[in-house]
Structure formats: structure tokens, C-alpha cells
């Protein structure tokens, strides 16, 4: 089996697992609906006095829907990696022909794909219902899926990185929480970065977080293909960086295994 085929097969495994957990999928859809319900009211109460041109309460609800869509589809792969490290299973898996890290990513992407497909229609329907219609320029929505997929990929890459840190830190959950909060705040999960104070916006642009949520979300604001491509390229850049970091960390981990005997 060639390498791409192997990874595809692993993605299939992840996808099938996600399909099996139907109850969890329903749970995520319900959660998404409730968050949109809440924030639709928030934006309505704040009123039309939005500082962004052409962006009103309706678009802000769509923004949230798209941002959440990307975030909710990433599986908690760091838990699986941490468990492997703790149990020592990783010792035998790091030497298998398919690199362990690649395998985890492939499986996680498979799961993410299923969740994106499952949550997509719900996100659309809920947003349409609670926002009271489509955004001012609905064409922008077409640009969302690739950006959301890229956002998911970035989450997955960072989560595997966090999971691998279990080699050095015993309990990675705190690291995850902090990363998640940073992602939400600096990634503009609940509302767009444009609403943040200047200094915070500048800080955020130096991090990969905006590509996690904000990039997908802002498609709600209008059809801007050029900007979208730029964001996509940026996201790919961050993905490459994270990928390199993963590669380096995995090698250190393997070295550590060899030295410590697993």
C-alpha cells in the first residue's frame, strides 16, 4: 500500500469512528444551536450600532456560526496521544512504517471531515433561523468551507503537538485548556477581531489563532476572494510551521524513548 493510500485508509478509520458516535454529534449540533441562540440575542440587544461597515447583528451571528463550525469539528486528539504516551503503546507505534504522527493526523482529519459535514447543515440552518436570514452578501459563504477545513487542520496539528508534550509533562490537559482559551480569545471565536482593541488585534496577528476561527468566520462579511486566498495561504504557512514543529518534536520523542527504554 502506498503512503497516500495508507493515510487515506486511516482517515477512513477516523471517519467511521465519528459516524459511530452519533449521540455526540447530536450533542454538538444542539450546543451550536444554543450558542447561536444566545449570541443572536446579544447582538440584537446591542443594536445596529456596529462599528464595522456593512456588518450588522445578522452577519455577526453568521460569523459565530462559521467560527464555531471550524472549532467544534476538531476531535480531542491530544487525549488519544497522551493516553498512548502514558500507556507506553507509543513505543511500538513510533517504529511502524506509517509515522505515528502522520497516522494520528490522518485519523483526526477523517473524524474532523465527518463532523464538518454533520455540523455544516446544522450551522447553516441555525444561523439562518436565529439571524433571521442570510448575510448581506451570501456569496461570501462559499469561501467558508476551505477556510474552515484549514482551521480544523490547524487545530488538529496543534492538538497532536500538545499530546506529544506528554513525554515531558505528565498531564497535558492544562496545556490544552490554555491553548484553547488563547485560541478563542486571540482567534476571535465569539466575535470578530475587528471589534478588539487595537493592541490586541496586533498581538493576535502574530499568532496562528486567527486562522483557526476568524478566517472562516469573516466570510460572513462579504465576498472577498483575494483576501480569502491570502488568508488561506497564511493558514497553509502556519500549518507548515506546525508540521515542522511536530516533526522535530516527534524525533526528540523517539530519541527520548530510545534512551529511556519506553
Amino acid at each position, binding site marked *: 500500500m502506498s503512503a497516500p493510500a495508507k493515510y487515506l485508509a486511516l482517515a477512513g478509520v477516523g471517519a467511521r469512528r465519528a459516524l459511530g458516535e452519533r*449521540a*455526540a454529534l447530536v*450533542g454538538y449540533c444542539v*450546543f451550536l444551536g*444554543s450558542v447561536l441562540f*444566545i449570541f443572536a*440575542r*446579544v447582538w440584537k*440587544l*446591542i443594536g445596529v*450600532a456596529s*462599528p464595522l461597515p456593512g456588518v450588522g447583528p445578522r452577519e455577526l451571528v453568521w460569523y459565530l456560526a462559521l467560527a464555531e463550525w471550524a472549532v467544534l469539528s476538531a476531535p480531542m486528539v491530544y487525549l488519544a496521544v497522551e493516553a498512548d504516551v502514558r500507556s507506553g503503546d507509543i513505543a511500538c507505534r513510533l517504529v511502524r512504517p506509517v509515522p505515528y504522527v502522520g497516522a494520528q493526523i490522518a485519523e483526526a482529519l477523517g473524524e474532523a471531515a465527518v463532523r464538518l459535514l454533520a455540523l455544516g447543515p446544522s450551522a447553516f440552518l441555525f444561523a439562518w433561523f436565529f439571524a433571521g436570514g442570510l448575510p448581506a452578501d451570501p456569496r461570501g459563504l462559499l469561501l467558508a468551507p476551505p477556510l474552515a477545513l484549514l482551521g480544523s487542520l490547524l487545530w488538529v496539528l496543534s492538538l497532536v503537538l500538545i499530546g506529544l508534550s506528554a513525554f515531558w509533562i505528565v*498531564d497535558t490537559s*492544562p496545556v490544552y*485548556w*490554555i491553548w484553547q*482559551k*488563547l485560541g*478563542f*480569545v486571540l482567534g476571535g471565536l*465569539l*466575535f470578530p477581531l475587528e*471589534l*478588539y*482593541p487595537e493592541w*490586541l488585534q496586533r498581538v493576535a496577528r502574530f499568532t496562528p489563532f486567527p486562522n483557526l476561527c476568524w478566517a472562516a468566520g469573516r466570510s460572513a462579511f462579504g465576498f472577498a476572494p483575494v483576501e480569502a486566498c491570502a488568508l488561506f495561504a497564511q493558514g497553509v504557512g502556519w500549518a507548515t510551521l506546525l508540521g515542522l514543529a511536530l516533526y522535530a518534536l516527534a524525533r526528540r520523542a523517539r530519541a527520548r524513548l530510545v534512551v529511556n527504554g519506553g
Partner: protein
Amino acid sequence: MAKLRPTLAFLRALVATNLRASLALRGAFLLQAGLMILNNLAFFAFWGILFGRFREIGGWKLPDMVTLYGVVACGYGLAVAILGGTRNLARAIADGQLDPLLVQPKPVLVQAVASASTASGWGDVVTGVGMLWVAGKLQPESLPFVIVAVAVSGLVFSASAVVVQSLAFWAGDVAELARQLWNWTLNFSLYPRPLFAGGISFLLYTILPAGFVGFVPVDLVREPSLAQLALAVGACVGWCALAFAVFQAGLRRYESGNSFGTRPS
């Protein structure tokens, strides 16, 4: 009630033992509590930014939001630190871990929920106290209301969790459902009151416990009045009574041996 003294002694000993157990793992305790503080602050940052931009949401200003957070964080933190066994109750029921408790002469529910502690809860308490201090609610005239509000918030949360987890007596694998509802309730108790002014939403948030964990106790602190006090305490007593009733009913079912997962041997 000749039983009062020994019962109080028992409760005091139970809570003390629970706290000692949670401190036994020193390093993990500090880490979890500390990180929870960071976690809460980051979470609150949203509202900070939003209110910074928009001044007010339906009449609520930032200090109101800080008060809300303070009360809920304190209440929730105490609930998981002292009654930490609530989170795991469904699994304990399914695994038969209640058996040793059934043989002892003290109430099973109390022992089951007060026999574990989640260290991160103390981080929540610290965050909550800090926020209440910032909001200026720790003054002598507001302190009694704050204490009642925190107690109501924590108790209603725990009681509602017990009701859901007790479904394990009837339906088996409730752990996932219970976990989702746990997060939901906490999440939705942290939204500002004006969001629920409309008829239906108001109803939802009073029937679902989120309202009694969040804005009802907080209203007691923001605008103390006898009516609010009665409402908050009444809701608390009601939810606790419901929790006991549901658990007892479940226990009777457990004793008949017909609850889920009982393997006759």
C-alpha cells in the same frame, strides 16, 4: 432531635476528610487550581472586550457581569470542591460502588457526593472571590446576600447534576448525557440576565436550573430584597428536595436489584 449533634459531627468529619484527601496530592492540587484561575480569566476576557466596546448590553454593564461571574464561579467552585463526587455519580451507580455505603448507617447520597473533591474548584473559588471584590460586593452590607447567593448557586447546580446522574439507576449509560448537561448548565448560567427577558427564554431558564445557578442568585446580590431572597432560597430548597427524592427513588430501584447492569451472582 438527639440525632442532630452526631449528624453534624459526621458531616463535619466527612467534609474535613474530603478536603484532606484533595490536599494529599499537593502538586497536582496547586497546578489544577492555578490553571483554573487562568482559564477563568481568559474566558472572562470576552465579556471584558465586549463591554469595553459596547458599554452595555440591555442595561447590564461590566460590573454586573463581573458580579455574575463572581457568584457563579464561587458557587460552582465550592460545589465541585466539596461535593466533588457529584460529577462521577452515574458511573459510581453503574459500577456498584454504592454497596459499601448502603451497609453503613448514614445517608448514601451525602456520602456518595461528598467523598471526592475536584482541586480545580478552589481555583474557581479564588477567581470568584477576586471578582466579587473587584465588583465591590464584599462589603459588610452586601456580604450576607453574597454568601446566600453563592450557596444557592452551588447547591442548585449540584442538585440538578444529582438529578441527571441519578438517571443511571434507570437507564444505564447516562455518563455522556450527564456530562453534556453539566457543561450546558454551567455555560448558560454565565450569560447576562437581559438576554432572557423575552417570555419563552425566561421560562426556559427558570425551569432549567441555569437560571437558578446564574441570574436568580446574582439578582439577589445586585438588588437585594426579601422577595429575591425568598425566591432564591425557595428554589434552592426545591431543587435539593427534588435531588434527594429522585436519588431515593433510584436507590429503591437499585435495592430491588432491577437497575441497570446488576449482575446476579
